[in-house]
């Protein structure tokens, strides 16, 4: 980064004058960390904790009481997966209704959050074209380029944006399917979007969706082992996500991208809608469609 260059320039230039002193960082009170997501038929929650220093090892909290409630839903307790910080409860929640999540643990302040469960999108159509193949830089692989065109319909109710996830499943010699994630997924034609999860997932703002009337092309490349047959299925997953979940993902992936520990980086304040704690409580509703590849 340019600023880092300048930073080191100053350090080198004045290296004979520089003296480094240790400072006390203000004390941090550990608090509960929640990652909660309402999905179409299940609500999943991870509970961990924050630390004054660096977290090490597994730090999920198994002994929490996690509940969810809503206008149509009495207080319902999550089941815990033993020795983990993972909790879930199978529920088909009502769309566009607000739900309240509460988490408590004997050693921490109880935390809570409220969020509206978003309505589902619909994949109206979906076409897949192969654009060509190249030898990969990885031995035993070739690089296949695809273009996917789709038309989507979205609920009228409020949501933060959509996530677009594509992947393919190809048959091996034994007829078993192997799921292959794409490398980079992108949108041509100057459509404004963001990439999440190592460039594999596309995020589009609600406003952008309106501008393109739900019609878009997705280009993605896949590294395919040469022994696999070019036969299988391509999957398109489109999810509406709530505003809080969108805010969290945007802040998280920005944080992931920037160099946090240098002086010149503008720090990323991670979004949180958890009262008395950290993390998020969001909603995601998904439609999936697949096509045969031959």
């Amino acid at each position, binding site marked *: *980064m*340019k*600023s880092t*260059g*300048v930073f080191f*320039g100053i*350090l*080198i*230039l004045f290296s004979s*004058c*520089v*003296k*480094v*002193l*240790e*400072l006390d*960082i*203000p*004390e*941090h009170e*550990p608090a509960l*960390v929640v*990652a909660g997501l309402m999905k179409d038929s299940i609500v999943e929650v*991870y509970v*961990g*904790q*924050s*630390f*004054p*220093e*660096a*977290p*090490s090892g597994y*730090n*999920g909290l198994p002994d929490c009481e996690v509940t969810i409630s809503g206008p149509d839903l009495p207080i319902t307790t999550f089941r815990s997966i033993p020795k*983990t*910080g*993972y909790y879930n409860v199978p529920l088909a929640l009502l769309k566009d209704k607000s739900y309240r999540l509460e988490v408590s643990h004997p050693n921490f302040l109880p935390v809570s959050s409220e969020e509206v469960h978003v309505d589902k999108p619909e994949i109206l159509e979906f076409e897949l074209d192969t654009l060509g193949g190249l030898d990969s830089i990885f031995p035993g692989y070739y690089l296949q380029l695809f273009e996917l065109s789709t038309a989507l319909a979205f609920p009228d109710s409020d949501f933060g944006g959509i996530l677009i996830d594509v992947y393919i499943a190809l048959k091996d010699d034994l007829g078993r399917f192997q799921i292959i994630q794409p490398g980079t997924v992108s949108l041509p034609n100057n459509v404004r979007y963001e990439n999440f*999860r190592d460039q594999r997932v596309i995020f589009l703002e609600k406003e952008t969706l309106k501008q393109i009337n739900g019609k878009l092309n997705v280009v993605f490349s896949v590294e395919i082992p040469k022994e696999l047959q070019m036969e299988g299925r391509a999957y398109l997953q489109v999810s509406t996500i709530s505003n809080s979940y969108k805010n969290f993902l*945007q*802040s*998280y992936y*920005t*944080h*992931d*991208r*920037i160099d*946090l*520990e*240098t*002086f*010149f*980086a*503008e*720090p*990323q*304040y*991670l979004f949180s809608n958890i009262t008395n704690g*950290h*993390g998020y409580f969001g909603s995601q509703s998904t439609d999936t469609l697949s096509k045969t590849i031959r």
Partner: protein
Amino acid sequence: MPLKPILVAKFLLFAAVIFGQEQFTLSGKLKDAETGETLIGASVFIPSSGSGTTTNEYGFYSLQVPAFDSVEVVYSYVGFQNQTYTFFLKANLEKDIELGTGVQLDEVVVKANSYEEQLRSTEMSVEALTTKEVKMLPAILGETDILRTIQLKPGIPSGGEGTTGLFVRGGGPDQNLIVLDEALVYNPNHLFGFFSTFNTDAVKDLKLYKGGFPAQYGGRLSSVIDVKLKEGNNKKFSGSGGIGLISSRLTLEGPIQKGKSSFIVSGRRTYVDLITGLVNKANEDKPDANLIPGYYFYDLNTKVNFQITEKDHLFLSGYFGRDKFSFDSDFFDFGFDWGNATGTARWNHTFSPRLFNNTTVTFSDYRYQILNQVTGFSFDLNSNIKDLNFKTDFYQNLNDRNTLRYGANATYHQFTVGRLKAGSDDGNISFSAGQNYDAMEYGAYISDDFDVSPRLTLNGGLRLSAFSNDGTFYYGVEPRFASNFKWTSNLSVKASYARMYQYVHLVSNSGISLPTDVWYPSTENVKPQLSDQVAAGFSYLFNLGGTKLFLTNEYFYKWLDNQVDFIDGAELFANDDLEQEFVFGKGYAYGGEISIEKKEGKLTGWIGYTLSLIRRGEFEGPKGTVMNGRYFSPRYDRRHDISVVAMYEISRRWSAGATWVFGSGDLTWLPRGRYTFQDVPGVDPQVAVPVYGDRNDVRLSDFHRLDVSVIYKLFPKWGESDITLSVVNAYDRRNAFFVYIEPQYKEGEEDPNGTLRIPEGFKAKQVSLFPILPALTWNFKF
């Protein structure tokens, strides 16, 4: 008797008194008898009536004097001997006056008139410095710096250790209008802010407005720094200069045609790079030796002026300065250079004894370039802003109570924002980014200095400003007001109000002022910044044990709107859509400033104290809000700021200076804790997420430093000379230059192979820059 006729009669009587006596105009210029330089802000005063004026920034004065009467007029200027003339005017008279020091040049002569003028003027929230004061005070590495010295005045805290960034009354570093001979200077820094671009030898006058801005100034919210270059000695050839540890400077000036035209050339250059170059060459054959990067800066000021006719005077001046940083090795070359260039063509025309005009065309260019070359790959990043400005100002003495100023200006801005070219040498990979903007900025103003009575003076003004950029048009109406009520002969009470618009913005995500900060114009989404400031205070001249002291106490409140900041995690590097990273919000600042100044006697100086509070908030932009719109303090919210400045003339040969500054520590933003998301799909369980409090919620330790200097004067036959010893940071205080976070690893895990290591803790570390820093400089003048 009905009330209305009484009022009419009173008005007529008043008018008769004012307008009944015939008057003529006494006008001309005040000059330094030794060099012929015009004197700015010199006093022209009629003791019998208590009326008077000051010379404008071009040395011109115009005064109404009773006709057919013997009138005594006193001309005075700080550091010069008063001159008194008796006039008996039968017609308008143009009279240029030359003031001399009348004593040895190295002695400071200050008459009470400078206090008188401050007590009489409507100007408030103004700080001025003479180069004499600057040269007596200690300087970092012996390099005197007028911009750094002005920061010792109350209400102008600096950006901290080693920077010349100015944060005036809660304003940001981009909210200062800095003009050098009327040309805009975008980056007034050398060496990342350690020195300013103003060479003290070439500077004639520096004036800094913190509030109560006169209507002729616009375009920035928080301060105006007006720097005037010397015109050059039009009586005899002379020179001055200095040789220091890191730099040398030389100024030559003299007449082209005696009394009619003159020139001045002033340059300086640092030479650390010559020394580091020799060290690198000596180490060429040593494989373990580390190369030292090369760095130098230089600047050159030139000016010529021609008295074309009695009524016409032409000035041409220019500034060119560059900083160059380079690091060259077998596999990695890095070059970074930046600098300003300005040019000014100015024409003064006296239409009549009452009407004076200054017309100026200026050019300014600020650019930086970063060149980076590693084996097989290179990149070139540059940014640039160019201005071409036309400006005309009229100064009209309407009558003995009203002085009008009016004028207009138009500026063409050309912005190149973050032009990046990167690619491999074989051409297989290439990348480019950057944006260009062309914009126009306009201003027109009128103001009146109105002497309502011998005790009450008002200044009212109005400025209209406008900005157009790619079909987007903004305009602003900027009222200005200042008043002075002279309660007694040594106490005056002042108040002012000023509205300012700012149409260009500085893009910077760093804690210090960097040359890579980019200027960005107002666009459809980026609205102009706006501020309203009210200030009130008093000035009091009093005697303490036979010593005259001047007390100034002011209070201010400033409202700020459309402030530009960055969203959390803003990515500014090679970003073609910077506006997505902006957030826009509001702010306010308030505080009080007090100073006591002593200008007479062997011991001179001042003590200043500022108490202030700065807040920003309600930030929102395309990507969201900052802290959900809550208010926070910017990094430069310095609650307390104290400066003590003393200069002492010990003997004819010896003098000494000392400054002590104290400031509340700067604010910063450090993570307090961390957490990870585990068992969460799509989220890397290894990534430790930092937990931050509110923005800038950690205050660093207080800043304080003592600098001292001793000057020993020599009196050679060929002129003047002195040896100056400066000691910066005399008691070795380690002030924070910046703070960073360093991961801590388990003992014995310092793996040179670079395998993945998970930190077990973090430590905040403070980098301090200046230890005790002595410097010796030899200065000369012939």
